């Protein structure tokens, strides 16, 4: 088993505030790492530093042993690192299928070959598989903006998998999703993790969701790593209870 993501001593300062303060951790291939912590503890900022949306003030990020700090998000995506955002980010005017094709097309051939190639970049089949996998079959041709919030959340997650990523960072995939849909989402994520050996890092506030989905959990508070370990260990950790779970 190899290390997919290696984060060493990441710091991010905004003026006088240190949002992320020396965070280091590794993620092994096939693992699902949960990332929890109170609001404002630096989880999303850490994601943005790893994914190139923000440039870290200090520290280094490696994907499969290759240093990727400072790469643009689009370059990282084409290296097989994919993400979802905390707020919904589907393209409302495009249909569900078009959203998925868009999410995968830049992984097909070169820019020039895409211009002269087929209009779906050869991805209709893959998109339809993904639609079936996430149980959105009856909605394939609907504009994404017409879907319910939960369905859009599923589509948002599905889009992260279109490029066949090695590593997926999910920012609150369960936020605002109803219970039935949540069970679906969890089951689908576990399945994709098993079948495709995709590695995940998941930010989530829903404890039940995190504890049952993730193989390891990392707790952050005030920009630092408070604890990291198996869900049960973390749940029993006094510092964690003090900072987060107890409240």
């Amino acid at each position, binding site marked *: 088993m190899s290390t997919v993501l290696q984060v060493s001593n990441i710091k991010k300062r905004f003026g006088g505030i240190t949002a992320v303060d020396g965070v280091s951790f590794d993620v092994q291939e096939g693992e699902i790492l949960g990332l929890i912590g109170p609001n404002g503890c630096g989880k999303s900022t850490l994601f943005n530093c790893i*994914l190139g*949306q923000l440039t870290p003030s200090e520290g280094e990020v490696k994907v499969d042993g290759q240093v990727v700090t400072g790469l*643009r*998000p*689009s370059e990282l*995506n*084409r290296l097989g690192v*994919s*993400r979802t*955002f905390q707020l919904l*980010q589907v*393209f*409302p*005017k*495009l249909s569900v299928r*078009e959203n998925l*094709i*868009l*999410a995968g*097309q*830049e*992984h*097909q051939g070169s*820019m020039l070959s*895409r*211009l*002269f*190639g087929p*209009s*779906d*970049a050869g991805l209709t089949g893959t998109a339809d598989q993904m639609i079936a996998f996430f149980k959105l079959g009856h909605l394939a041709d609907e504009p994404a903006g017409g879907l319910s919030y939960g369905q859009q959340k599923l589509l948002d997650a599905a*889009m992260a998998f279109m*490029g066949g990523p090695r590593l997926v960072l999910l920012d609150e995939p369960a936020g605002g999703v109803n219970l039935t849909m949540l069970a679906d989402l969890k089951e689908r994520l576990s399945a994709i993790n098993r079948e495709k050996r995709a590695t995940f890092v998941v930010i989530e506030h829903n404890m039940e969701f995190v504890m049952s989905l993730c193989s390891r959990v990392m707790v952050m508070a005030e920009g630092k790593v408070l604890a990291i370990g198996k869900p049960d260990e973390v749940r029993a950790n006094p510092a964690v209870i003090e900072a987060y779970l107890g409240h």
Partner: protein
Amino acid sequence: MTAIPRALRIALGILVIAGLILAPMNFNRYGLFILSQWAVMTIAAIGLNLTLGYAGQVSLAQGAFVGIGAYSAAILTTQGMPLVAALGVAIVLCFAVGWILGYPALRVQHHYLAFVTLAFSTLAFLVFRNEDWLTKGIYGISNIPRPHIFGIATNKPLPFYYVCLGSLGIVTSAMWWLIRSPWGRAFLALRENPVRALSLGIDTRRYTLMAFAIGSALGGVAGVLYAPLTQYIDPVPFNQSLSLDLLMMVIVGGAGFFFGPFLGAMIAVLLPEWLRFTEGYYLMLYAVAVILLLIYSPTGILGILDRILAERRTKTASALRAVTKSRLETAP
């Protein structure tokens, strides 16, 4: 616009194309000139619609590219070069300059970007007016020849109208292809949500530059046709107001709608002719009409159509739901 049946759309398309080919056969010289001008301006507006409507990058410099194209054609063809060569030069030149003009768009957006492009437009105008050695300055370039296409002279208005119309046809097909390709999807993603686009591997920088470069190149194509159409050019038509006119065509027709520029250019070129009887009042009427239109429908004329069709779709869908529901309720 999926609510219009496919067969009807094809029939409508054929009717319009046939009309554009057949009807002008008994037009007078002036009518043909106006219609040719419509075709030329539509090409420039299609280019701006790509940059602004599809990729969401504001440009107030499209008129400058029409000018660059027109001067390329005027200078080269009066030196005895064929118009096709001038076309090649203009496309390459405008593509390159448009690409460079796209760089500020990587740093600034919206009205800031509008100002950058405005400055460029002014710069281009000053070059047209002041660089006498190249452009003959305010005296302009006259006796611009019209081309021979496959050995056929296009000096007369009707053949040259067909040159313009044919060019519009080629540009339309190419744009249709582009918008339907993965690039079209990427442009739309760039307009709607650049942050998400970037995280999906879309190189937003390159697509932004491409949107500028291709849009500008089409402005150049329009210019290459404009020069032999008027057979005389001076700097005045390529001042800032042309860029604003083109912007208006795109907005009034419907930015981001494929046929928006056709409609917008039709209104901008033909309406003054139809309103001629109002004499001096036409500009006022035009301005009031545009203000009212944009209050009622900020997405332009095709935006109205789109809204009506969407409403009809929703009504059909709710009617279907109601039927299903009543069936379920009456089921034993």
